[in-house]
């Protein structure tokens, strides 16, 4: 796992909101085509880490490198960096005043400078691939949660990112809608997309991740292959967390 080929390298990343220290020195390296799941209790820093990587939150200390380039260095063009990193949010965050087509083509047209017809042709292809071709003219509020989240994934893919960040993308969905979104993610993983996934779906994490990282109070406490983390976690905090998950019937 040398840094030269790594898609993402976080080094000693610190982030505080006022007095509250949310990330206390995160070191994490993600290889190209690798799928990593971040697990941990709410408030452990999973979402904040993803938001920092997308530069939605400035970090206080440390550095983040994407494809070898330090994106947290001063003077970096943040808009350029964000084009290469797709992020999908728990609450979808689709633009309610735009149709599905409008949502998906916004960035290609405004950021990448594609013409409307070019952008729409690409969007149709993506929507088709994820079974949303017939929804192109619908508005987000008329879609189910699962469909909205799939549109959000397509929107993030439209700028051809090399890295996808998924922030608890199934947490706001009804149980019967979770599968359709997880299938999309699975397909992306099979296609070789590098992904960093914050999730509470332990079964899914075990299934899809090459590596699982357990975050606890802003510290990356333990990481390893899913078999090891889920069956024989070394740290006591990890054991406690997984025990609670099992008790809650989410495993």
């Amino acid at each position: 796992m040398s840094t030269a080929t790594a898609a993402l390298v976080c080094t000693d990343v610190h982030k505080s909101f006022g007095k509250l220290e949310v990330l206390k020195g995160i070191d994490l390296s993600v290889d190209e085509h690798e799928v990593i799941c971040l697990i941990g209790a709410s408030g452990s820093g999973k979402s904040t880490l993803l938001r920092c990587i997308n530069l939605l939150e400035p970090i206080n200390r440390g550095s983040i490198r994407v494809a070898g380039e330090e994106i947290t260095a001063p003077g970096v063009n943040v808009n350029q960096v964000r084009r290469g990193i797709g992020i999908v949010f728990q609450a979808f965050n689709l633009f309610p005043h735009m149709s599905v087509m409008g949502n998906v083509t916004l960035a290609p047209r405004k950021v990448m400078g594609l013409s409307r017809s070019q952008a729409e042709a690409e969007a149709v292809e993506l929507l088709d691939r994820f079974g949303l071709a017939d929804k192109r003219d619908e508005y987000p509020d008329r879609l189910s949660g699962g469909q909205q989240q799939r549109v959000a994934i397509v929107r993030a893919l439209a700028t051809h990112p090399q890295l996808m960040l998924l922030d608890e993308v199934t947490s706001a969905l009804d149980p019967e809608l979770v599968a359709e979104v997880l299938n999309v993610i699975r397909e992306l993983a099979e296609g070789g997309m590098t992904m960093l996934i914050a999730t509470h779906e332990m079964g899914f994490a075990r299934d899809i991740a090459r590596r699982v990282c357990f975050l606890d109070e802003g510290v990356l406490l333990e990481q390893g292959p899913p078999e090891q983390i889920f069956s024989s976690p070394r740290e006591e905090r990890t054991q406690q967390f997984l025990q609670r998950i099992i008790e809650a019937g989410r495993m």
Partner: protein
Amino acid sequence: MLNIKIFLVAEVLILILALVLAVLRQLPGPVFFPIRLLAIGYTDLFRGIPTILLVYLFGFGIPTLQLAHVTNNPVYLGAAALVVVYTAYVSEVYRAGIESVHPSQEAAARSLGLTRGQTMRTVILPQAVRRVIPPLLNDFIGLQKDTALISVLGPVEAQQRATLGASSEFNYTPYVVAAFFFVLITVPQARLTDLLIERDRKRQMAGGRV
């Protein structure tokens, strides 16, 4: 129909100027602090002054300055006073709309690589403006009625005409007629706005209203 002309021109100017003012007030970071301060100062000042006072100041004050290239036409000056006052009010309406759009919308747009300006134009403002259409209409009805204030400067508009009629014949029916005309103009606008909002809602929302 002097009122309507004044109103139409003033309304367009106010819509644009107030939007600019509201956006200036939202500019982030210490660099734009002076601009934010100016925008806040403008709003505080011109919302605080009674409209009729500013109409007097513009209509009678500016001509006494004898400025070159500045009109002495009381209609223009009165209308300018209304634009100045209503820009302050309307910018606050816009600001409320802008702030009502959830920050996650901005995060989503920025995460796609859109600049701050692109995000404002394509994501924040379209949603903000839709939400404030009813209060905007409120202010514009106020504006239409306040065009009557320009009568103090001399030009003949509806209110003035009514006063002339009333004082010459001791008959106050002209006031009633003038009032009737004002209502006659505003009600169709209100219904049209309702219609537009309803159409927009139907397009975006699933099913009916809850």
